[in-house]
């Protein structure tokens, strides 16, 4: 399965994506969690105590003259799968985590790492690895090549005016994309009984999960801990588990 979480800043993408990745791994999938935000935030919800995981310089080289493609690439002989095995951080439940460095990194190093990161995402065999991506908030990155791996874009939407407007914009950008993609909504921090319905009608997207506002989940985030470790029985974690179940079921036709 290959999914990308998008949405307005602060909607809850990272918290849901990290929880989603680990629950998917518990079902026996090999999961690579990818954070393509230069201000990364996914690692905490995976249960890691670092927030970046760039490829080391030794993994990347200049592309030889005459070879077609971007300026930097993985070292000759290093496949995408090997790069993940060797360099991706290891989170609980066996989830591997890749990010490309932070915005304050030296720009050249950041660029090298970004190109190798994109190469890995492009070349990693889909039959071996599931991808769960956390994209930066807002509308700038999602449909400009950073989410190309995704079979399904999950727009995380709070039932609030600005979040709903961002979701509408993302839905519009998706429909204008060169390749048609599946875009659905995850209603988050839901309080009122009709909130999920509001998200559906205002965003124009199918709502595939409704995650309740959950104080214990928020507390875990506040402490920078993975909700799955701190409050595994919380309603919000359960709702994410239902989402994993639903998407897995859609793909295989089998309920695990």
């Amino acid at each position, binding site marked *: 399965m290959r999914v990308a979480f998008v949405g*307005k*800043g*602060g909607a809850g993408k990272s918290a849901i994506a990290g929880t989603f990745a680990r629950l998917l791994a518990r079902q026996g999938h090999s999961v690579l969690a990818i954070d393509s935000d230069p*201000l990364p935030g996914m690692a905490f919800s995976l249960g890691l105590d670092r927030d970046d995981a760039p490829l080391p310089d030794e993994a990347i080289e200049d592309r030889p003259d005459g070879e077609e493609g971007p300026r930097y690439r993985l070292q000759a002989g290093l496949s995408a799968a090997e790069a993940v095995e060797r360099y991706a951080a290891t989170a609980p439940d066996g989830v591997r985590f890749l990010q490309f460095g932070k915005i304050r990194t030296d720009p050249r190093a950041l660029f090298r790492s970004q190109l190798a990161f994109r190469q890995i995402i492009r070349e990693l065999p889909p039959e071996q690895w599931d991808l769960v991506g956390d994209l*930066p908030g807002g*509308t700038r990155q999602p449909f400009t090549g950073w989410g190309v791996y995704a079979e399904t874009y999950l727009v995380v939407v709070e039932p609030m*005016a*600005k979040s709903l*407007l*961002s979701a509408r914009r993302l839905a519009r950008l998706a429909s204008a994309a060169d390749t048609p993609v599946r875009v659905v909504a995850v209603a988050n921090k839901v309080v009122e009984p009709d909130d999920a319905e509001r998200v559906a009608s205002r965003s124009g997207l199918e709502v595939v999960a409704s995650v309740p506002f959950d104080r214990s989940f928020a507390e875990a985030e506040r402490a920078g801990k993975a909700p799955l470790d701190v409050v595994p029985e919380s309603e919000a974690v359960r709702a994410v588990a239902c989402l994993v179940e639903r998407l897995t079921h859609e793909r295989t036709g089998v309920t695990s």
Partner: protein
Amino acid sequence: MKLAVTGKGGSGKTTTSAILARTLARRGHQVVALDCDSNPNLGISLGVGDDETERLVSMRQALDEGEEEHAPGWDEVLDRFGSDAPDGVRLAVVSRIDNPEPGCL
């Protein structure tokens, strides 16, 4: 005074900016509120509504796509890319000029 409000997504930049702008306006300042976000929502928090916010966004988009001319000065920016918000705040959705025409700059 000139203020810029920054921070992580969802931390409250837009809401804070809107309240600052309208509070200053109510105290008698002439206030221009600039939305420089790539996902601009300041209109919502200032109270101009969804439709007007989207209208300003689409104008900036037309500019970015080269269908609209850049404004040569600040007054024309506010005039052409702006909208009146409550308490007399003038809102404009603006962007950096990333691709100036050849011969310019």
